[in-house]
């Protein structure tokens, strides 16, 4: 039975997902929708054709990265929910470099990607410093920074980056700054390889380097970390900044790696909520960078299939986000698994 113990986190996540889908269907029934029809449409929409599978993967790219932001925070003992704002700024950074600068082809893509990552990290810096210097709780500081980022990004998008003649969006990324589309007619681009590489990098950082070990030690046992000589302040700063880099990359991926817009809508409509989705994805993936990839593909399927569900069953596609919330609540209950197992034994 030992091998079962290794499977336990996966089983717990699956139980939580099932609980989320069941409660979601109860809510649908309550408002006279047909949950079975909705879920069939959701599944068909997500995996029906090869094109849909590619689309599901395209949806999973930004959220596997924002999941890293949250997971890194949890691994350090922080509740960093600032991915949303850092992602907005990452998108702005990518738009500025990809849309306004003229650079040779490969260098342009790299520069725009880096600009997004740096902008995201810079936006994470102030909450990190407030935490280290003043002890300001990161839940409050990061949420305030999300809202400031929301208004600031719209301001920048409209005043400095707007496409002439089209006020509803920013200048598009120049063709030299775009990641190549992987299949004709899909919105999946090569940026998914960058995202996957980043997830693997974080995995090797956490479990393969001394700095990563210190980061996990501070999160698991701050006292032991102090005796081991790890500086909590340094670790908190690193965790916030790496998280900001991940979120910034997520924002950039939606500008230079996502047709057909290749730009940021002035309402931030094509990036909004991706940071919050990452929280649920991180928790479903047990705050592990590789678990996050699987969870992101699952959530990508919900997000892409949700649009088809709205079309077929009339259920608002945002319902997927509500189901995500229920899954998070279910995962917060460590006893849930024990309660279910007790029932089965009886």
């Amino acid at each position, binding site marked *: 039975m030992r091998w079962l113990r290794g499977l336990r986190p996966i089983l717990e996540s699956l139980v939580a997902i099932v609980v989320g889908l069941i409660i979601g269907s109860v809510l649908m029934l309550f408002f006279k929708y047909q949950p079975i029809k909705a879920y069939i449409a959701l599944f068909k929409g997500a995996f029906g054709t090869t094109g849909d599978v590619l689309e599901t993967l395209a949806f999973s790219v930004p959220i596997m990265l924002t999941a890293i932001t949250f997971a890194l925070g949890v691994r350090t003992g922080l509740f960093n929910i600032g991915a949303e704002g850092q992602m907005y700024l990452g998108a702005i950074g990518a738009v500025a470099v990809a849309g306004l600068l003229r650079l040779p082809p490969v260098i342009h893509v790299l520069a725009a990607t880096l600009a997004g990552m740096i902008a995201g990290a810079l936006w994470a810096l102030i909450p990190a410093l407030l935490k280290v210097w003043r002890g300001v*709780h990161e*839940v409050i500081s990061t949420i305030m920074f999300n809202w400031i980022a929301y*208004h600031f990004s719209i301001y920048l998008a409209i*005043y400095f980056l707007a496409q002439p003649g089209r006020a509803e969006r920013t200048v598009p990324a120049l063709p030299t700054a775009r990641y190549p589309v992987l299949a004709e007619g899909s919105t999946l681009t090569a940026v998914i390889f960058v995202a996957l590489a980043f997830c693997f990098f974080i995995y090797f950082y956490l479990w393969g380097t001394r700095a990563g070990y210190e980061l996990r030690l501070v999160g698991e046992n701050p006292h032991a970390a102090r005796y081991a000589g790890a500086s909590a302040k340094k670790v908190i700063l690193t965790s916030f900044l790496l998280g900001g880099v991940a979120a910034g990359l997520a924002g950039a991926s939606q500008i230079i790696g996502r047709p057909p817009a290749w730009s940021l809508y002035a309402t931030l409509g094509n990036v909004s909520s991706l940071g919050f989705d990452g929280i649920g994805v991180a928790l479903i993936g047990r705050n592990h960078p590789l678990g996050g990839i699987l969870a992101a593909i699952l959530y990508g399927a919900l997000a892409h299939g949700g649009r088809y569900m709205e079309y077929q069953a009339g259920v608002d596609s945002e319902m997927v986000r509500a189901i995500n919330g229920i899954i*998070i609540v279910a995962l917060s209950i460590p006893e849930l698994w024990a309660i279910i197992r007790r029932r089965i034994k009886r």
Partner: protein
Amino acid sequence: MNQQRIFWIIAIIIIAVLVFYGIEIAGLKPLSILEATFLAMTPLVLAAVGECINEKAGVVNIGLEGILLITSVLGVYGAEIFGNGWGGLFFGSLIGALIGLFMGLISVYARAAQVVAGMGINIFALGFVPFLLRAIWAFPGIHLFPRELMVQPFSTPIGRINPVTLIAIASAILGSLLLHRTVLGFRIKACGERPEAADVAGIRVDLIRVFTATLGGALCGLGGAFMPLGWFGGVVKEISAGRGFIALACVVFAGLEPLLALAAAFIFGFAEGFAYAVAITPGVKEVIPFYFVHMIPYVTTLLVVSVAIGQRRFPAASGLPYSRE
């Protein structure tokens, strides 16, 4: 009330008066700012006072934002069913109480990680509210309701005041009296500080925690329903705009004291009222972009929390589940 607290409150009143005179010179109308301040502080006070009480008992609920969002929509729904704004406020606080009760039950009996569960409620609300708007009114993102469902304010020498604002202020005073002057209050504090000791003394820690979480949810729900019914006159899917977290900042600033939370809510409410006034003042609105005006409440929150933190002490067992070994 110790001297330090009295000092704080007097200092805030003096600063507020000075700022009022200052802005009158700058061409803004202080009375309309005060009216806006009272409106903006109301949901913050209600959410923060409830949270102060349930954190004192040991349950941390960061799902305030989600409760505000859900109850603002369902409050309007209730008002349309009852045909009356007060019915909507009642329905909103009922839904808030149910969410608080749920939060209390999973924290106490299922030993849930409270911060994660609270965030789950927030994200649930983010998706559930657009779903509700479409499911109830078949229109995405926004709903406007008849004017006669609004809870009407009454006129006073310092501007129009909504009765719910008075309820909010009363809740802060009563909450403070409850915590510091009643037996139940001492029991609540014991559950947050030393649940083992409270248990030995015969206090039902589980019941007290579930009760305070429900009460906190009900107050927050009243604040949520107030936003459309007493203030905006409609609901949009992002109506709460971070107010649940600003209320949490009030709680942190206040160190779980309801009266200090009231003072903090006044500061943040003032920041928002001031922002609205700036946004519509001729001569100012052309110079400062609208988007920066919108940031004022959030920047104020950050500043106040950064300056005030570090001197507060929180209950030893806050956020931790308790059960007999």
